[in-house]
């Protein structure tokens, strides 16, 4: 008697797991092809699964209430025949499930990829969601929040024919576009601003024609959120809320526990005057070579790590209990906050990239992580990681190591603070470089030298010319 197992299928294009809600059969029951076996709940809805086999139920492999991944066998059915799967069994019509008939069988899933005019709807639904902040993407740049004068150079003042307010042709091509309208922003950006409750009139656009870009809106929203956090939401009606631990959250927890309880952590900090880094970043932004590329202090820090790793090789290694594997390359991890949780994709062989290439790689990694498209390969094989707490306004932190690595660097916010220069207190852009290390591998002296090296590059980026 042959037995066949039914692996949990993906019933909705890309679902990864489902909960077993109710079994409709029990061990010993005989089942026919297409007879309903079980009701499952996916991320989207309840679905009944019809049997692919005919035979006798041997065992239910998953309990009701359990959440299992797609591909997990959920039931074992014994049949007298050989390959039941290939045995087409014609049964009584009443036994056939009609899952497309939604009166009885709501089906699961996201909108299908077959658009039929739904494309616009999907774009509204998913494309313009508030974007996640990527830890590791850029200390917030100083933004002029000067309110644009709403009447600044109204077209009427310069139109040859002020009596034709609606004629677009009347708008002289010599008027800078940015001045001809109070706010210039593409519709998706306006939608984003609306979703994030951002007032476009309050933003100075940084686009080529003075238009407001996506980044402008996000930056404004983040600034506003500092104040919005002062609003205290009401507690839910229920006394407790239970959030199932699964997916990315589960993976994060596992990695953090593994790291925190297998590698003894030690953290060190160094305050640094990063004024020259800020100036360097400004110069890069203005240079034609870096036109259109995101440049931030994170880029300088990434490059600093490559330099400091060469001088302190053991911080870029892996502990295996038998040996310490020192890597002669850098797969630079960037901790990223995404809607699904923390992920750490890395830039492969970052040591081979020029400053420009590194900036482009950081940007690409940001976009990929933001879109939730980072692959397992993107996240595997990291050798050292940066977490950009500065993007949350934090001064520094004591990060937990990415498992398999022995060092993680925290880049804090770079803020103007009093700093003593030549015996005088002066304003300077100051930050705190923090780093955690696996103390099994990295002793205090190496940890300190490495951190001091990073600090010295932020103090004087010209050291990168070394």
């Amino acid at each position, binding site marked *: 008697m042959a037995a066949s197992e*039914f*692996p*949990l*299928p*993906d*019933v*909705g*294009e890309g679902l990864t797991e489902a909960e077993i809600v109710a079994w409709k059969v029990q061990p010993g029951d005989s089942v026919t*092809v*297409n007879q309903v076996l079980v009701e499952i709940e996916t991320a*989207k*809805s309840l*679905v*009944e*699964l*019809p*049997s*692919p086999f005919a035979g006798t139920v041997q065992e239910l492999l998953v309990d009701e209430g359990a959440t299992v991944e797609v591909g997990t066998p959920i039931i074992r059915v014994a049949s007298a025949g050989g390959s039941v*799967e*290939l*045995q*087409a*069994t*014609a049964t009584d*019509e009443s036994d*056939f*499930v*009609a*899952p*497309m*008939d*939604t*009166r009885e069988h*709501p*089906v*699961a*899933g*996201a*909108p*299908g*990829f*077959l*658009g*039929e*005019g*739904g*494309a616009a*709807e999907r774009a509204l639904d998913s494309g313009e969601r508030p974007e996640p902040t990527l830890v590791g993407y850029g200390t917030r740049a100083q933004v002029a929040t000067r309110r644009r004068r709403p009447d600044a150079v109204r077209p009427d003042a310069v139109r040859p024919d002020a009596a034709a307010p609606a004629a677009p042709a009347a708008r002289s091509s010599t008027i800078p576009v940015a001045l001809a309208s109070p706010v210039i922003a593409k519709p998706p950006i306006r939608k984003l601003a609306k979703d994030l409750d951002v007032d476009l009139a309050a933003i100075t656009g940084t686009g080529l024609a003075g238009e407001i870009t996506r980044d402008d809106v996000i930056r404004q929203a983040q600034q506003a959120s500092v104040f919005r956090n002062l609003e205290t939401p009401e507690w839910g009606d229920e006394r407790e809320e239970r959030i199932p631990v699964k997916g990315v959250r589960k993976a994060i927890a596992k990695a953090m526990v593994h790291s925190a309880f297998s590698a003894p952590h030690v953290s060190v900090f160094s305050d640094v005057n990063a004024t020259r880094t800020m100036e360097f970043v400004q110069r890069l932004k203005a240079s034609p070579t870096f036109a259109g590329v995101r440049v931030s202090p994170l880029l300088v820090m990434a490059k600093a790590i490559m330099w400091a790793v060469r001088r302190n090789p053991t911080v870029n290694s892996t502990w295996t209990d038998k040996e310490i594997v020192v890597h002669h390359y850098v797969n630079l991890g960037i901790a990223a906050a995404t809607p699904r949780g923390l992920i750490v994709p890395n830039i492969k062989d970052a040591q081979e990239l020029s400053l420009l290439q590194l900036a482009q790689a950081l940007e690409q990694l940001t976009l990929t992580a933001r879109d939730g498209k980072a692959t397992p390969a993107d996240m595997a094989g990291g050798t050292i990681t940066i977490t950009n707490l500065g993007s949350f306004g934090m001064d520094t932190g004591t990060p937990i190591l990415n498992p398999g690595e022995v060092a993680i660097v925290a880049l804090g916010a770079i803020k103007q603070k009093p700093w003593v220069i030549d015996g005088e207190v002066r304003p300077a852009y100051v930050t705190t470089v923090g780093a955690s290390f696996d103390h099994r591998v990295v002793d205090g002296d190496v940890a300190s030298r490495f951190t001091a090296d990073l600090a010295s590059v932020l103090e004087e980026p010209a050291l990168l010319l070394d």
Partner: protein
Amino acid sequence: MPLSTALPPAETGTAEPVRLLSPEGQLVHSALSEEYLPVIEALPDERLEDFHRQMVLMRRWDIEAGNLQRQGQLALWIPSHGQEAAQVGSAFAAKPQDHVFPAYREHVVGKIRGLDPVRIMAILRGIDHGGWDPRETGNFHIYVLVIGAQSLHATGYAMGIGLDGASGTGDPDRDEAVLVYFGDGATSQGDVNEAMIFAASYQTPQVFFLQNNHWAISVPVERQSRTPLYLRAAGFGIPTTQIDGNDVLASYAVTQSALDAARSGAGPRFIEALTYRMGAHTSSDDPTKYRENEELAYWGARDPITRMEAFLRGRGASESYFRALAVEAEEFAADIRTRTLALQPPPRERLFRHAYTDAHPLVDEQRAWLERYEAGYGDAAAPDTGAAPAEDGAGA
């Protein structure tokens, strides 16, 4: 309220659509139907039974494929439950020399034209991109997933027929025409509108067949158009007719008349078939999230198969016909299941074979790269036997 869109046309302010068969299965005698009834009355019983038979087989196929998707054997299924009459009637109206351009829900049209159903299953099993040679599938062209794009392909083809002088010769057995299917959602696409403009400008021999199933995934038709969709064609200067799309006889007779006109050189025609997607948009969709049970019940009472069965029984169709059909439907479904499960992934080589007609150095380079890459997995890699039946068109 979406409900209003899917209620009878009278309530949406339009004239009555052409209906030859009432929901109760009676022939309708009206000013609109008189023109078409003689066509139906001239049909032999076998042909009327064939209308019914193809609808029943399609619905059974729908159920089997839906189950296969839920069993993890198809990545996706696209149900046509509810739209069988619009599709079957129009498909039978086309002549062998006509060219048919489907969207992606016209499974039964393909079947009637001679396409093996398993070719469609292979696409939805994710092992085939759906490339077939229309010369081998009764001029049934490939499925098009880009919404409305097939309308341009169809118009282009119809322009070609015109330029070849293959229509309007006065010989109805030789003249060719094009029949293109699309949905209400597609009418919001530029492609469909552009296709109508060119069709009108070049007076192409083609019929635009709109299946208005009332839902573009979750967007009701009322949100896409304030005017009945068939009236849009009039704006392009294309003669247009609205029909009861759940009436297989109306679908047949009106499409035949429109195709005859197109073949004869009278220019394009437009048909809006009012029907309803009883199921989900695809197996990934959950329509309970966006539409009401009353609407479903309204259309359920106007089922295309039920009314055709009542009509056949009223004409004295034998019980043995229905019994034999029930058996045939089960066998048909079982055959689809068996052959779908037997489908194998195509050989890697097939990726490259049809990129260019002749050998191409870039393709050679990519093929060599892929071989090296796959070889990098060593023994763990699944052997690429190259002997799969999907050699050139899965299960053909």
